[in-house]
């Protein structure tokens, strides 16, 4: 079905080459991402263009045997809907112009083909006040102009496409001369490169070699760089999250796409936190289930694939209200997944009626045990970046039967959800103790006395909370400077309270001691140490001994199993 030697292009022909072009871009978009230095070096050009053109290709995927004008229209509409980022928008404009030119036509000849590209270029230029040369705009302008001037010498559509692509490639190679920043870095323009990939796919399509989508694999160094670039952007995008992304990954040493890295949950989580929120990671020996809200699901998948192969994938645009998107592609895992799929329900319902009940938020199995031993009646799993919703608290309240219920959110971010839950649960006496850290929560828990009245308990608990000085130790995911403290990537950070970073050290113990220096005063009598899942018992015990020697203070060591944070400290 080669149409290379035809003089006329019809709807079916355009359809197949556009899909071929879209697939070719898909197969190469990580390369395009890597070129991205302008206008903002965030490494997303390829991803954006791919999202745009894939959305266009989807529109025409199932339309058969219609006029070329209709194909153009559908494709351009799809592109517009799916356009993301600068280059995605420009690409959508190019094909908008293309579609306008062929609108109402059954087929086009070589002249019509050239006119369509020229029109695409014109429309693309109209939407910008100050076009920057040396970008995708230059590539479309020069290549379409060249094609227009060559029309009399061309005999087939295939030749016309070849002519367009040749000039586009030449033009792309010249972009560094026009845009200094490209030359500095030593790359060609990324948007232009994306466009060339599309044209290349179209030409191969004309030759009868319709491009198929491939599994993409990224060279390691490149991946590393991209991760870096994404980190730069993360801070800015912290509060807008476009895609609900979920997948189940089978960890392996060897997968479809080559050798895999060994999985380290804290590193993995650190990466996700840099580009998303609402992160939930559940794992067993070989499977990891991940849920994250991110603007870059592609980056998440590419990164995850370094560790294993996907069992299932699901991405949903949370802004898009169309319900048809939610049908169909629901994660269907084996029993194993179903069992682990509900991380927020480490429920321990108490059916017997009590005078007092405590609902607390915990993270990590060790902490769950600690709270349980301290009379917590219901534990909501949560913590940093895994904030339980109001709904979780409402469910907790339904599961607890007591005259007075205390909620310990143990995190500032969860306080509001807890308060809302208290408001909606009618007929129950719910008291919220605004604990900001796990240590505060533990102290409050300890104070509950079933033999005294609510007010006394409340006072005692709040009093206990105010006596605790909390601190936590975690690691940094990027270089930055906060409050005059220079923080290095992968260094250990000591955080006083919940926010104030007081230490950034290469060694974990140094960070601990620097933090404790700020926490311990002459009046302090005991340090509660809760060590996380990344710390061994031996290490923790050594640290505890050292602390008690150094500060001449009593220590109380517990295994918390919490992720991300190596240690929680509470000083009283």
């Amino acid at each position, binding site marked *: 079905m080669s149409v290379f030697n035809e003089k006329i292009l019809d709807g079916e022909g355009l359809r197949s080459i556009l899909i071929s072009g879209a697939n070719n871009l898909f197969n190469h978009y990580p390369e395009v991402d890597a070129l991205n230095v302008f*206008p903002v070096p965030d490494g997303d050009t390829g991803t954006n263009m791919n999202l745009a053109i894939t959305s266009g290709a989807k529109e025409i995927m199932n339309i058969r045997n219609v006029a070329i004008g209709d194909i153009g229209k559908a494709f351009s509409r799809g592109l517009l*809907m799916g356009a993301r*980022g600068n280059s995605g*928008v420009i690409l959508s404009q190019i094909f908008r112009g293309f579609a306008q030119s062929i609108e109402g036509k059954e087929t086009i000849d070589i002249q019509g083909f050239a006119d369509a590209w020229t029109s695409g270029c014109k429309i693309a230029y*109209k939407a*910008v*006040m*100050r076009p920057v040369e040396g970008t995708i705009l230059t590539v479309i302008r020069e290549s379409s102009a060249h094609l227009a001037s060559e029309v009399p010498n061309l005999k087939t559509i295939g030749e016309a496409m070849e002519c367009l692509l040749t000039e586009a490639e030449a033009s792309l190679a010249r972009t560094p001369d026009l845009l200094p920043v490209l030359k500095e870095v030593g790359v060609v323009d990324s948007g232009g490169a994306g466009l060339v990939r599309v044209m290349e796919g179209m030409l191969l399509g004309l030759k009868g070699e319709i491009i198929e989508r491939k599994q993409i694999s990224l060279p390691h160094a490149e991946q590393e760089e991209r991760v870096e670039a994404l980190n730069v952007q993360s801070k*800015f995008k912290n509060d807008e999250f476009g895609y609900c992304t979920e997948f189940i990954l089978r960890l392996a040493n060897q997968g479809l796409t080559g050798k895999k890295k060994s999985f380290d949950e804290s590193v993995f989580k650190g990466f996700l936190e840099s580009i998303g929120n609402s992160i939930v990671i559940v794992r067993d020996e070989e499977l990891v289930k991940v849920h994250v809200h991110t603007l870059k699901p592609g980056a998440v998948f590419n990164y995850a694939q370094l560790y294993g192969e996907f069992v299932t994938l699901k991405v949903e645009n949370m802004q898009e209200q169309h319900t048809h998107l939610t049908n169909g592609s629901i994660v269907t895992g084996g029993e194993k997944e179903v069992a682990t799929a509900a991380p927020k329900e480490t429920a321990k319902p108490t059916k017997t009626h009590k005078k007092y009940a405590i609902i607390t938020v915990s993270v990590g199995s060790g902490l769950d045990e600690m709270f349980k031993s301290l009379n917590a009646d219901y534990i909501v799993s949560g913590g940093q970046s895994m904030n339980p919703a109001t709904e979780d608290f409402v469910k907790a309240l339904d599961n607890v039967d007591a005259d007075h219920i205390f909620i310990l959110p143990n995190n500032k971010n969860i306080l509001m959800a807890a308060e809302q839950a208290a408001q909606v649960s009618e007929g129950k006496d719910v008291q919220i103790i605004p604990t900001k850290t796990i240590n505060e929560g533990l102290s409050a828990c300890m104070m509950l006395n079933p033999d005294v009245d609510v007010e006394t308990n409340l006072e005692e608990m709040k009093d206990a909370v105010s006596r605790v000085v909390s601190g936590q130790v975690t690691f940094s995911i990027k270089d930055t400077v906060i409050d005059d403290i220079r923080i290095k990537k992968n260094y250990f950070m000591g955080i006083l309270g919940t926010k104030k970073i007081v230490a950034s050290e290469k060694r974990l113990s140094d960070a601990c001691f620097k933090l404790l220096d700020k926490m311990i005063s002459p009046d302090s009598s005991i340090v509660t140490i809760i060590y996380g899942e990344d710390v061994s018992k031996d290490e923790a015990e050594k640290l505890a001994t050292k602390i008690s020697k150094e500060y001449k203070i009593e220590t109380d060591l517990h295994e918390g199993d919490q992720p991300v944070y190596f240690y929680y400290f509470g000083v009283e």
Partner: protein
Amino acid sequence: MEVSRKLQRGKIDISMNAIAAIAGNAALECYGVLGMASKRKIIDGVAELLQDDSYAKGVFAISTSKGVEINMYIVCAYGVKITEVVSEVQKKVRYVLKKTLDIDFSAINVYVQGIKNIE
């Protein structure tokens, strides 16, 4: 109002107008942005494009306790995905300002004052 910083060899003051000008220029290079519009639509006419020399009427920088806040009023092209254009403007303005001035921003607010048909 200005942003000032003390260095070893003296002081650097950057006026809000200068910051606004840099932000405005960066925004105008963004794809899909056809120009700046006046903030006061009713007085100055319905979202008329500001001429090149008076585009400062469409960009404002104010200093707040959390950092500099930028408000800009733009006109977009019809038929482009506005949400993307706006987020690209924010991204680009922030990047350019950060790169050239190295100061912190509390917000970059973009108001689309009008849409212009380009066909």
